């Protein structure tokens, strides 16, 4: 088969799965859609987190639009307590960390490193120069590109290209590969020159970055973010929502349990703390997740005589987690070689978090 034939038959495949960012259209919101008085570094919509240092307070939202623009949802940072004068160490940025295993084809850290292009929509209250930062895992390589909000509170499209980084340490395993950050404001400690790879200092924004956190009327909206290899932003890579959700679940997922419906069988082994029922996760996670139970009581019912043990506090049951399953357990009761069914006593969610 000739190269020409290859290109003719399979050329369209190159346009698929090109977005290195997950949930770039902000459709997936497993944690919720509203994050009032957002806590620093907490994740908001799937795969994205907003973080800050300083006295400013803001809320984050997934908001929808039916305007004649090419997306349904966007992410908003809404200022509720202004920080008029940013101290040197202050900042606010909205970030996604890309897993290094998704970047092998870019050859970063080698001479053949490929360029990247970021296309996105933005709507900020304050007009002027904004920054987007690209950093490696230890921020020993940083690249800043600027974009402009020309008209207040109007959707505008931006496209920036950065050259592939040919040196430095770029991880290749299931750790952080590339960090992409949109700065809403930034003090002098974390600013640097745009348009070149910076090898000293953790830089989030250019020295021209405006302070969009200086008024409680300000918002910082981002939408339809796509990062792809090459020097041109191409059409939106619209993945089906089920596929996008699965990609998100590698990092965060919610399990649902119905009240009094057994979800597993446990066997006592004489070592009480190791008794537990295993729940298989629908998607293998990046690493063993932290596990959070909302509050529902967990019950263990002995199958031989239906005697039950119930624990009402999440602090009092045990969890062991792996990338493919978690094990839930109530502490033992001193009876070996018995079988138990495990169930929650109310509809509940169990949240598994393996984010960076």
């Amino acid at each position, binding site marked *: 088969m000739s190269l020409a034939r290859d290109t003719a038959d399979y050329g369209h495949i190159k346009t698929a799965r090109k977005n290195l960012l997950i949930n770039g259209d902000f459709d997936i919101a497993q944690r919720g859609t509203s994050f009032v008085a957002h806590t620093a570094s907490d994740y908001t919509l799937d795969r994205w987190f907003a973080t800050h240092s300083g006295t400013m307070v803001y809320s984050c939202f997934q908001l929808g639009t039916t305007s004649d623009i090419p997306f349904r949802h966007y992410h908003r940072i809404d200022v509720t307590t202004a920080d008029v004068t940013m101290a040197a160490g202050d900042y606010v940025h909205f970030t996604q960390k890309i897993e290094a295993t998704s970047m092998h084809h870019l050859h970063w850290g080698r001479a053949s490193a490929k360029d990247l292009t970021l296309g996105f929509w933005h709507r900020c209250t304050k007009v002027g120069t904004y920054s987007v930062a690209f950093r490696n895992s230890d921020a020993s390589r940083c690249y800043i590109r600027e974009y402009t909000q020309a008209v207040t509170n109007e959707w505008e499209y931006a496209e920036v290209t950065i050259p592939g980084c040919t040196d430095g340490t770029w991880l290749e395993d*299931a750790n952080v590969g590339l960090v992409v950050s949109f700065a809403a404001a930034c003090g002098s400690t974390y600013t640097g020159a745009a348009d070149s790879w910076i090898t000293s200092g953790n830089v989030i924004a250019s020295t021209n970055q405006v302070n969009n956190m200086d008024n409680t009327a300000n918002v910082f909206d981002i939408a339809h973010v796509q990062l792809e290899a090459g020097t041109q932003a191409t059409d939106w890579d619209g993945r089906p929502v089920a596929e996008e959700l699965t990609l998100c679940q590698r990092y965060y997922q919610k399990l649902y349990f119905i009240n009094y419906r057994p979800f597993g069988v446990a066997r006592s082994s004489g070592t*009480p703390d190791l008794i537990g029922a295993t729940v298989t996760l629908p998607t293998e996670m990046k*690493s063993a997740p*932290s596990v959070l139970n909302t509050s529902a009581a967990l019950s263990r019912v002995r199958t031989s005589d239906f005697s039950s043990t119930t624990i009402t506090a999440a602090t009092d049951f*045990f*969890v*062991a987690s792996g990338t493919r399953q978690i094990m839930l357990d109530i502490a033992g*009761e*001193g*009876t070996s070689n018995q079988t138990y069914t495990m169930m929650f006593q109310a509809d509940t969610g169990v949240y598994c978090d393996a984010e960076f």
Partner: protein
Amino acid sequence: MAKYELRNEGCYDRELGHHIPDDEANRHWQEYLQWVMEGGVADPKPVAPPPTPQEVLNADLLQTDKEMLRGFDWLLEYLVGNGTVVLADIPQALKDLYIARKALRGA
């Protein structure tokens, strides 16, 4: 009471309600290790309370119930078979059970 409590595998974050695995790739475990480096000391792993005497007794009875029932079957069969016990003398409920179990065995 410390922020963290040790568990069999990893620890429990009392403030966030997270069960945290001892996995270096887990960001909450990384935060815990940082907390330890800064001088934090987690509370020890909770120990399950020992079973009460009644629970021990119940467990022992449960373990022996099945064997006891098999022994009772054998004993009753033996006593009825050699004429020591007349079926009519057995209380009705026990007699019904004996007949039912005998039918189940196909005897």
